């Protein structure tokens, strides 16, 4: 039987693509704006695109913040995508200071517009980049990255801001952008989140979503 996924809709735009990728990966997708559905979900996916502050405003208006907190406490699997990863942190400096949900310690900051040699680089960071192990090291066993073993899969990023986890243990994978390490994926207990877009990362992304369904 297809695994049930609840996809939390708070009016941001990429619902359809996330839903379709999850369906392609074998999920029975239920899209909802109702925080009660989110709390009761078997598996919850929180996507997000656009500005952090707009996302948080929508999350707060719809009562999704408390729902996400409750769901996380339930221990059931949750996946955040892009801004859906960023809002898990304490605050973002996009368009001034905006508080996040504070589920993971750390802040969301602008990507540096120069590389580590001081040469200017593009922001937003758009394109395919390889996932690498964080500096402090981290096993990908029993995570969505397990199927990739020691490979460094390429995934699709599009963002100007990135979360900086305060706790190294939360970092699951990074990517290298102009010599800077950007936190590409975090995991703590039942919560996994990606800065990149698995729903836009071709077969590699679909493989991760399948893995999310199987856990």
């Amino acid at each position, binding site marked *: 039987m297809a695994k049930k996924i609840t996809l939390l809709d708070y009016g941001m*735009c*990429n619902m*359809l*693509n996330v839903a*379709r*990728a999850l369906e*392609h990966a074998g999920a029975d997708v239920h899209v909802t704006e109702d925080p009660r559905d989110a709390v009761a979900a078997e598996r919850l996916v929180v996507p997000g*695109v*656009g*500005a952090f502050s*707009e996302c948080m405003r929508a999350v707060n208006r719809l009562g999704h913040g408390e729902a996400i907190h409750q769901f996380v406490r339930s221990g059931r699997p949750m996946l955040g995508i892009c801004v859906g990863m960023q809002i898990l942190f304490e605050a973002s400096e996009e368009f001034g200071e905006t508080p996040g949900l504070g589920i993971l310690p750390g802040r969301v900051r602008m990507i540096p*517009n120069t590389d580590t040699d001081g040469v*200017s*680089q*593009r*922001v*937003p*960071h*758009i*394109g*395919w*980049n390889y996932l690498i192990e964080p500096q402090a090291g981290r096993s990908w066993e029993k995570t969505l990255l397990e199927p990739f073993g020691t490979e460094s899969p*390429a995934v*699709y*990023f*599009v*963002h*100007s801001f990135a979360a900086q986890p305060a706790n190294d243990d939360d970092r699951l994978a990074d990517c290298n*952008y*102009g010599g800077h390490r950007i936190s590409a994926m975090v995991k703590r207990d039942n919560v996994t989140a990606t800065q990149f*877009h698995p*729903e*836009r*990362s*071709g*077969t590699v*992304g*679909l493989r991760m979503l399948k893995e999310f369904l199987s856990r």
Partner: protein
Amino acid sequence: MSNLRIIPRLDIKGKNLIKGVQLEGLRVMGDPQEFALDYYRAGADELVYMDIVASLYGRNNLSDIIRRAADQVFIPITVGGGIRSVDDARHILRSGADKVAINTAAIARPELIGEVARHFGSQAMVLSIEAKQVAPGKWEAYTDNGRERTGLDVLQWVQRGVEMGAGEILLTSVDREGTRKGFDIDLISQVSRLATVPVIASGGMGSIVDFLKLAESARPDGISMADTLHYKRVQLGDIRAAALKAGLAVRQV
């Protein structure tokens, strides 16, 4: 820098994928879905769809085509042509596009760039520029598939567009489009140097050599091609293999 993106471009008229020469003299190629699926399976990094008659009708008619594509294509999709307002952009994004490319309406009212960026994020706001050379080292921005002049200098427009909130530039050389004579390297180099956001170069690819030359000399973030793929003169996989062999940073698939 990210890996250089290889981006098939699908110009659409009505239901059909078409191909023209310098954006005129159109020829029907077939069902865009078949081409899109082929390119997705062959490892395209992204797809661009352009409704090339949209400005005649005043609206973009690609939402059905995009919805179908989004069912089976799990890479980013940029859609352009006839997008005039935040509502138009929303409609296209809700159909399954990740980004909208805006040319005519942004020239008519540059504030639209900021409005789209604020609503959907600058990463979703691609400034599409049709550039035609008017003097050595000088290009003018055109609209309506290279038919209407605007008097805007391309380099100044790039700067202004980025200031207004564009998150990416899709740069098409009107002079080279569909000619297979190679990219306008001078144009793309200058824009690429100037822009602080990613630049996708389009127009003129006739061979893999053209691709390699552009990548090495002008350093764009993405290279788009149409004609050469649609007519199967070049295979996507061969472009990637040649780029890797030349030591260029493209995604290994």
